[in-house]
């Protein structure tokens, strides 16, 4: 035991001092110093640390982080020598899981614990497991935009104030990792959400879209105005094969969680309440902010769907499971029928009752525009029976021949309403062998208008007013009229109905149309979606979004080899697109299916791709780091390898191989 001692009284041997910072001791506390030798195992070091701290708590999540090398010392059986650790190393003894503040696709904030030691790919999988989003491989994390962007967003940023905290949630440990297996729901939601009212509220936020949106929200959001700006967001993606800690993400830092790869696998309303909602939200924002451009007609459909979803969401119960509604209808019809049958007193009466189809009879003013006539509206006695409208000169003549009969099946019904002018017209374009004949029906008031309009709509689809949807159609029309009535200057009533329709469309169309022009158009589009259930409507929205030509293209500013100017590279789920930066025209498209191989020269940061028929393409990325581009392409190729076999997990190794570049090796 004899040996030389240092001034501090330690023995001089192969041992040296290692300093480790422990956050739990407080920010001001001196780092711990341990006396170690090179052949001590990491596990041993950690034991010593815990001994020295003398604080009783669960240290199992803690691990050593080597700051200079940005490296987690996770292999507890490795020695310090093996890690190449010397006395100058600054170590931190810190938890592997830390809270982060996530902005979800629906622009709401949530606080969750994320793994800071595993690759982001796994960290995202963990987060998604907490959020109950299947197929986490389609999502990833981005850094929040820089400060200057934030300034723009001051004001009522979407309820960021009420942040939801899911950091305390404990997941059942038995869940298989990355298999995409479904959790057993409890009270209509994943079991871990049902712990407390707070988490239940959180589940509601996740699975029901937010209804409190105002036009200002949309206006305040930064909108990309050019391809170059659209390329900006893609520079912020975190690398999937490195950990959050390695990418300098701090505890409680704000990150965005977004669907990164536009290749949505196996969307299933039964399991995917949260996923579909979040996807819908991302789609909705992409449309509203014109990240994905749409035409006027398409925008009206999106607006109608949003309106519809919003309306249903107000009364939605997230624990309600989707589906089975169709049968429900029939079932109850049958059970009712049964009751009827059992109590068949006045069967014949009833029959008559049931088989008669409601009719509408009223004095309406009718106008048939014709060339060279200046005649205006003329009062007629109008009878609406089944799908046919007949009109007579007067009520007394209703037994005789009508002036005209119009079968509305297949016709076009357009509202022509001006509330302030008390004008409630229905414009009918009725097809006939000779062409379309145009007829205007003018109603006296809202009620009458709603009844006739609803009848016309159903008739156009070949249904009669006996149809069970008739009443709801009438209600729909009335509530839309209500919307129109609320002028934008009027005090905003709390319920969403009164908010007008401006927020349903992108700012461009907010400017282009006055509310009273906009509402009828949305109403028109709404008639085609009014019968959808909440989930169906979201799915329809997603589908409509997917069929936009710009959908699913992630932009990067690149410089092609041999070219002197910047160009845009679009990366989609099946192809690469070379786009002229100035004009926005597609110059060339290459499909992954023709791709032979691709390489990245990390020194000159150039991606080189070889396609069939010896086509070679090489470019370097200007707007984003080279590995982001590389990961995007590799990620899509990885996703295309997914199989329908649900039991099989994902081949994580393959993902890193395809996306990680040299770092993974």
């Amino acid at each position: 035991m004899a040996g030389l001692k240092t001034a501090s009284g330690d023995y001089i041997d192969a041992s040296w001092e290692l300093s480790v910072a422990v956050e739990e001791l407080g920010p001001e506390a001196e780092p711990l110093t341990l006396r170690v030798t090179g052949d001590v195992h990491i596990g041993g070091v950690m034991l010593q640390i815990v001994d020295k701290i003398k604080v009783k708590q669960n240290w199992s999540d803690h691990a050593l982080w080597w700051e200079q090398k940005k490296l987690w010392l996770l292999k507890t059986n490795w020695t310090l020598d093996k890690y190449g650790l010397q006395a100058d190393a600054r170590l931190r003894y810190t938890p592997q899981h830390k809270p982060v503040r996530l902005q979800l696709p629906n622009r709401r904030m949530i606080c969750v614990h994320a793994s800071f030691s595993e690759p982001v790919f796994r960290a995202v999988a963990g987060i998604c497991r907490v959020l109950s989003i299947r197929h986490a491989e389609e999502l990833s994390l981005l850094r929040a935009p820089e400060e200057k962007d934030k300034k723009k967003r001051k004001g009522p940023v979407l309820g960021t104030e009420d942040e939801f905290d899911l950091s305390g949630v404990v997941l059942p440990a038995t869940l298989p990792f990355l298999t995409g297996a479904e959790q057993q729901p409890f009270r209509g939601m994943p079991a871990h959400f049902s712990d407390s009212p707070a988490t239940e509220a959180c589940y509601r936020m996740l699975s029901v879209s937010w209804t409190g949106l105002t036009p200002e929200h949309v206006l305040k959001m930064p909108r990309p105005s050019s391809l170059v700006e659209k390329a900006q967001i893609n520079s912020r993606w975190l690398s999937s094969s490195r950990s959050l800690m390695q990418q300098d993400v701090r505890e409680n830092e704000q990150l965005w969680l977004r669907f990164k790869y536009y290749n949505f696998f196996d969307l299933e309303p039964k399991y995917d309440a949260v996923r579909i909602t979040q996807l819908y939200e991302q789609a909705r924002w992409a449309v509203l902010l014109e990240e994905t451009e749409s035409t006027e007609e398409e925008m009206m459909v999106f607006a109608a769907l949003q309106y519809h979803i919003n309306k249903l969401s107000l009364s939605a119960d997230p624990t309600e499971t989707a589906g089975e509604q169709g049968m429900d209808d029939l079932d109850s019809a049958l059970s009712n029928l049964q009751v009827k049958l059992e109590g068949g007193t006045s069967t014949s009466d009833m029959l008559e009752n049931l088989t008669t189809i409601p009719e509408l009879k009223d004095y309406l003013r009718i106008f048939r525009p014709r060339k060279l006539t200046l005649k205006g509206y003329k009062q007629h006695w109008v009878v609406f029976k089944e799908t046919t409208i007949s009109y007579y000169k007067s009520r007394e003549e209703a037994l005789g021949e009508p002036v005209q009969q119009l079968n509305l099946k297949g016709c076009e019904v357009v509202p022509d309403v001006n509330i302030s002018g008390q004008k409630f017209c229905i414009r009918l374009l009725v097809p006939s062998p000779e062409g379309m004949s145009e007829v205007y029906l003018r109603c006296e008031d809202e009620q009458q208008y709603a009844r006739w309009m609803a009848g016309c709509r159903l008739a156009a689809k070949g249904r009669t007013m006996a149809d069970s949807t008739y009443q709801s159609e009438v209600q729909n029309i009335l509530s839309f009229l209500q919307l129109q009535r609320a002028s934008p200057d009027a005090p905003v009533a709390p319920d969403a109905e009164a908010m007008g329709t401006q927020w349903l469309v992108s700012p461009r169309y907010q400017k282009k149309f006055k509310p009273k022009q906009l509402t009828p158009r949305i109403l028109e589009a709404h008639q085609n979606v009014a019968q959808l259930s909440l989930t169906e409507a979201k799915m329809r929205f997603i589908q409509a979004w997917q069929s936009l030509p710009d959908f699913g293209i992630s932009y990067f500013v690149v410089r092609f080899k041999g070219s002197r100017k910047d160009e845009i590279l679009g990366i989609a789920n099946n192809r690469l697109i070379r786009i002229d930066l100035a004009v926005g025209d597609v110059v060339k498209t290459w499909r992954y299916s023709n791709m032979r191989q691709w390489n990245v020269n990390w020194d000159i940061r150039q991606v080189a791709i070889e396609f069939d028929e010896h086509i070679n393409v090489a470019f370097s990325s200007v707007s984003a780091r080279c590995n982001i581009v590389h990961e995007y392409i590799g990620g899509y190729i990885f996703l295309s390898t997914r199989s329908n076999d649900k039991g099989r997990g994902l081949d994580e190794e393959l993902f890193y191989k395809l996306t990680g570049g040299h770092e993974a090796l």
Partner: protein
Amino acid sequence: MEQTCDDIDEMFSNLLGEMDLLTQSLGVETVQPPSPKESNKEYNFTVGFKDLNESLNALEDKDLDALMADLVADLSEVEQKTIQAQKTSSHCPQSEVTQPSTGVCAAAAYDYKSNVPVTTTGHFEDDLPPPPPDPAFDLPLPPPPPDPLTQEELETQAKADKIKLALEKLKEAKVKKLVIKVHMNDNSTKSLMVDERQVARDVLDNLFEKTHCDCNVDWCLYEIYPELQIERFFEDHENVIEILSDWTRDTENKVLFLEKNEKYAVFKNPQNFYLANKGKNEGKEMKEKNKEFLLEESFCGTSVIVPELEGALYLKEDGKKSWKRRYFLLRASGIYYVPKGKTKTSRDLACFIQFENLNIYYGTQYKLKYKAPTDYCFVLKHPQIQKESQYIKYLCCDDQWTLQQWVTGIRIAKYGKTLYDNYKRAVQRASLASGWANLATVKPAVTAGSSLTDITGTVQANGQILQSIPPASLEAQKHTEMTKDKKSNDVNGGHSVQPTSQPQTYQNKRASLKPPPPQRRSSAVSSTPLQPAQPKRGSAVFTSDPVTFPPPPPEMAEDLPPPPPDFCEDPPDFVPPPPPTCSSSSEDLLPPPPPPPPASVSNKPPPVTKKVGPPPPKRQVNTERTEEPKSMGLPPSGGGSGQPDLMSDLMKALQKKRGNTS
């Protein structure tokens, strides 16, 4: 009129003679059953022809031939149904109680039906009383007898609404029929009966059977408007009667049966449409596997991908004679154009047209007709428009290939995945064709649809018919059956007419296994022509009947020995046997052998289970073609639309109720 009737009469005897020949050629000695024949005739005159007269005048002889074949098929089924009716009625005393009322009701319903104004289109419409409607009317009725007047007051308006809904659905099942004349390649024509639920695919299948063509996927029904000089092929999922009912009465429009490569070109070479650059790559080759990937990607995702398509087309301005060149783009939501001085970014595009209520046609020889720049034109119009009108949009492409791209692209945008499903079905059908043909030569009964089998069917009334009849005509038969039922046996018939009540009666049968012998016997006899030949067959034969019934309530199946293997063997050997004894013995009361079998038959409701057996051959065909059930009371015919469900649910409800009351 008289004339026609006579003709028909004559044809009938011819037919029957032919049947004789045929049955004889099968090596079976057949005695023509006189009574069925008569009743058949009667039926025809009273029901069918009354309505048909007018249009029949217009038909040529060979059309009539074809038509007759269809009708004959119907007739045979009528017999079956009658038998069924008798049997069921005789088997269940309880239902007998209800019979009077139901019978009357059915008759009323029937009358109503036949009086329904017929909207005749194109050719003519056959207003056979469709089976489903009857149930609609009878439905509320059956129950009252058992348990009348209870808690009527408790019912709310809401409930009434629901019932209305149910009834409306039932009503929709009224079956309209139309005989259409299809022009063949060789300038000949064929007439065939189309019922209002048949889609183009069904009609094509019928035509395949009638023409013995190669059944490849390119065959299509092709609609031609000589007046507008436009034409197009029907998509396989389109309802034929619906399309034809848009034609005017005096129309010159025609339906052709021909091959069009364009119909499914996109699925054979998707690369030409999805990967082509500016129309240059036509004919580029691609590996099959890659094609599959491409199709999968384009059609099987969450939303269908519409081929990217844009370019300058000529547009004929509304009502003007000039053609103006504009830059058009195709999107899933419609066709757009770039307004003057704007760019082709999404926000600047102006909508030219959207695809609801719109069909796309080829315009032919428009250079001549409208002074179009080229003859490669396409036309968009509302299906109902039949004359020239400002609401028809005319567009003209530079070349044939561009035209094809646009037409295909628009179809994809309009129909989406349906198109791909249609294609897959067509391919399936085509690949079946060869095997089908083989089968046909071996055992025609199974292959179905040929007039031969139809005829034999008539003769034997029972057994194999169920297999020999193509679902379509099976449907038709059902019709006739019902009517005949009513004629020959009003009370019972009336009862049996309601498919709904049938399972119920079956149940009863089980419950009270020994119903009045005489009645049953007669029915049993006629229904089991095979017995003498092979007593064991009895059950097999019997199975045929159940086939015409709605799916048995689950419980039944339980007490029945399910003999699927049995069935498998049956068809082959029991095809020939029927003729011998069948009809001859049927009406005169006692050929000694029969009695025992019937008894066994009645003892074994098993037939019901067996029923499980028979459908397969037929069902195969069915699933291929039908989207809608043939009729409400029918066997679970392939496609599952609301109706069968509804019916079986109603059944359940009824049974449940019965359980309660008893």
